[in-house]
């Protein structure tokens, strides 16, 4: 069963997704979209973790990806809460308008 799809293909997919996520964070100005791009990055990492796990035949990668998923969920909830409490004081989701503190 092994070897139908070579490891490199998974790694390429994961790297591509990761780059898409990074570009999303750097180029988009909508907070929610930036936020989604970060999630894409984390999930890209999960793909390579599982791929490595399978090809190296040990279970560390699966455990790691569990942790990444949980942490991602915790980050999502905290991040959304921050965005909501921000939105109450300043109704916008455009990153360029958050400029009281100079970047």
């Amino acid at each position, binding site marked *: 069963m092994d070897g139908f799809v070579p490891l490199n293909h998974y*790694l390429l997919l994961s790297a591509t997704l*990761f780059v898409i*996520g*990074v570009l999303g*964070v750097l180029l988009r100005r909508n*907070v929610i979209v*930036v*936020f989604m791009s*970060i999630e894409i*990055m*984390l999930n*890209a*990492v999960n793909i*390579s*973790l599982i791929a*490595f796990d399978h090809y*190296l035949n*040990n279970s*560390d*990668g699966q*455990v*790691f990806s569990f*942790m*990444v998923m949980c*942490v991602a969920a*915790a*980050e999502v909830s*905290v*991040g959304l*809460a*921050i*965005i909501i*409490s*921000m939105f*109450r*004081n*300043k109704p916008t989701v455009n*990153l360029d308008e*958050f400029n*009281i*503190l*100079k*970047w």
Partner: protein
Amino acid sequence: MEHIPAPAIDFISLAPALILSVFGMLVLLMDLFAGKNKNLLVFASLVGLVLAGVSAFAPKALPVVSFGGSYVVDHLSVFFTLIFVFSSALTILLSIEYNPRNGIRAGEYYALILFCTVGMILLASATDLIMIFLGIEVVSICLYVLAGIKRGDVKSNEAALKYFLLGAFATGFLVYGMTLLYGATGTTKLAGIAEVIHSGQTNSDTLLLLGTVLLIIGFGFKVASVPFHMWAPDVYEGAPSPVTAFMAVGPKAAALVAFYRVFATAIPEIGTTWDTLLMVVAVATMVIGNFGAIVQTNIKRLLAYSSISHVGYLLIAIIARNSLGGSAIAYYMMAYAFMIFGTFGIVILLGEKNSENLEIKNYAGLGVKQPAIALCMTVFMLSLGGMPPFAGFIAKFYIFGAAIKEGYVVLVVIAVLNSVVSLYYYLKIVVLMYMKDSERELELSMGPITLAVVAIAVFGTIEMGLFPDPILQLTQ
């Protein structure tokens, strides 16, 4: 059916983290019934921190290994546990008077500080990539919330948002780097990684290199080194002052010790490849931190840039990657804790009723009106600038010593020159306090507890400068 044996766990060595977790949850639940009065929460948090600090000394023979080599309590981690517990306690003490004055009424504040401390303790003892990742995230997620705890204040919101977005972005890089390291070596244990590299059986050297670079990016964001420092001034300015002091000491120390462990334990053998990169980062961090600080007019932003430059000095200890480097980082962070909490204590003392009073020009004339406070501030500024006989001098001395022992003379020369530059903006504040008359009357809020924290910090700064040996022995 064979059983899966339980991993060896030494609960005594885990006690600080366990105690703080339990107290964190207790404080969280107590807040539900405590009503408006937060004194009980403060008391419970402080008790938890003291117990955790005492229990850090409980293990008889160090190092103690738990969870199949994922968690090691050694001298370094015990000392860092003490730094974390100490800095969290000072943060809570500083908050007692600051929080009501600035409209922070959430009782979760104290629970979050305790949870954050747990994360830092885990980070200091972690010897497994998964554990390091978890520790960093526990710390970061607590800090995102703490930075934005002033819910009605747009500045605080903005600080939290920026910190969150950049922090999560950095987490992506960090975890991707860890994944590639795992893929290249087939293990997540730091010692295992070092073994595989030593025996030359890595799956792919490209992955290993790429992973190392991504790790430097990820850790670079977390410790705010150039070019990933942009978030620090904004977040330091927007977050509540006690939280800013907390961020500048505890989490930074925790990330640095994990940084040190990964680079000194797991991948020292490919050091030649990351040495140059890290040296460039260290020099850039010192230079940009110091020159950035010169132009600042807001005291919190100035301290943010100064803390960036201090990370530059600390990176030198990581580059040296000898045992001296580890204890030099520990000593530096302890000294830095005293200096930063003292300085922020004064920043909080000088806050007025309606504004935080953060402009540096308002410090003019302090030498005449508040001679004691001005004197304390002078001590902290000189110590931060690395002047003898204060703690900052000895701390820098040990770091440079560790680097010179490994032959990084040029790096040390650059660092010393940078220290001289940094003295300029530290002394500017001192000159302003003593040589200029104040422009307007300030209504200072002199809180006795905050004053006590400043007094402790002054004592520590001078004591560690004059008698460095006892603390230094603890770190080794």
